[in-house]
């Protein structure tokens, strides 16, 4: 396991998949590769448009989708974005911008690791 991607997750899912005779893991991976870029783009757009609740919703969805396929760092940062908006009484905008930038930075690395997983 590295800090960005936990390969054990995909391996465990594939082991489970053998018991069901379905192609669910590949579908999950393909869907993530297709959707994650768009979601991260929308995070930036909503941040700039100050639509924070929209940003929180996208972070919420991406938090789960990324954790499900082993993209642990992305899930962790999405969770921080969501918490910062939903739970903090006083929002730290600069911190929010830093977190979204960090997601943008790790996205291509995550996708590359996922493609070879």
């Amino acid at each position, binding site marked *: 396991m590295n800090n960005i991607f936990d390969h054990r997750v995909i391996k*465990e*899912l594939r082991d*489970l*998949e*053998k*018991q*069901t*005779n*379905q192609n*669910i*893991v590949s*579908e*999950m991976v393909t*869907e*993530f590769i297709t959707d994650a870029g768009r979601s991260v783009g929308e995070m930036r757009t909503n941040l700039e448009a100050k639509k924070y609740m929209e940003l929180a919703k996208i972070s*919420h*969805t991406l*938090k*789960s*989708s990324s*954790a*499900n*396929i082993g993209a642990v760092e992305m*899930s962790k940062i999405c969770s921080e974005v*969501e918490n910062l908006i939903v739970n903090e009484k006083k929002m730290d905008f600069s911190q929010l911008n830093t977190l979204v930038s960090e997601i943008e930075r790790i996205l291509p690395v995550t996708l590359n690791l996922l493609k070879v997983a």
Partner: protein
Amino acid sequence: MSNYVLVVDDNSSDLKLAKLLIESEGFVAILATDAFAALEKINEYEFKLLVVDIQMPNVSGLELLKRIKKIDAMKSVPVLIMSGRNTAEDIKKAVSLGAVDYIIKPIDREVFLAKLAIHLKNRKTDWHDYPIYGEEKVASLQESCEIVTFNEISLTLKYQTPIEIGESRMISGKLLDDMGIGANLGRCFECSKQPDGLFQIKMSLLGLKEEDRVKIRQYCRKIYSKVTKAS
């Protein structure tokens, strides 16, 4: 008793993961992406358990839970709530509306499987009451199988009648039941659709007790004698 578990979630990745986990335990997952689709499925199937996400567009999971609990046939069906929000208030609200448990997202696979086991009371597939493959159809499939390999490691059977993916576990479980070694070994197999559309089921025999091996040998002899008599 049905084998269906309904999962309601607007997140496609969570739906797929839940399906994978549920079906790896021998149940059949029926998926719905919103409350309206869920209510349609409830009319269509008899469910053993419901897994419902809270945050969904239009009608929330909690609102859906309220509506479900007003349906007489659903009052005794356990509902597990899933959510990325895990405050004491959220959990209390879900429980007060009739949820039996709460799963925090992102889904932890071990926790999900453990809670499934608890709320399904560890009951595996009830082979005799499977709504698609009734006794008659299963019996005719049993008649149409032939032995591909049988050794210390595995038993492989090929069916001369096509079987749909997803139903093979039911057949395999019934097969083990017929052998007299119980359906609890329903996970000990691999199944694959062959290029000719027929189905092959492979069961691992590793770790089996000698008495169970004897029962399998007897079963295989029965199939073998049927094949030789026919030829």
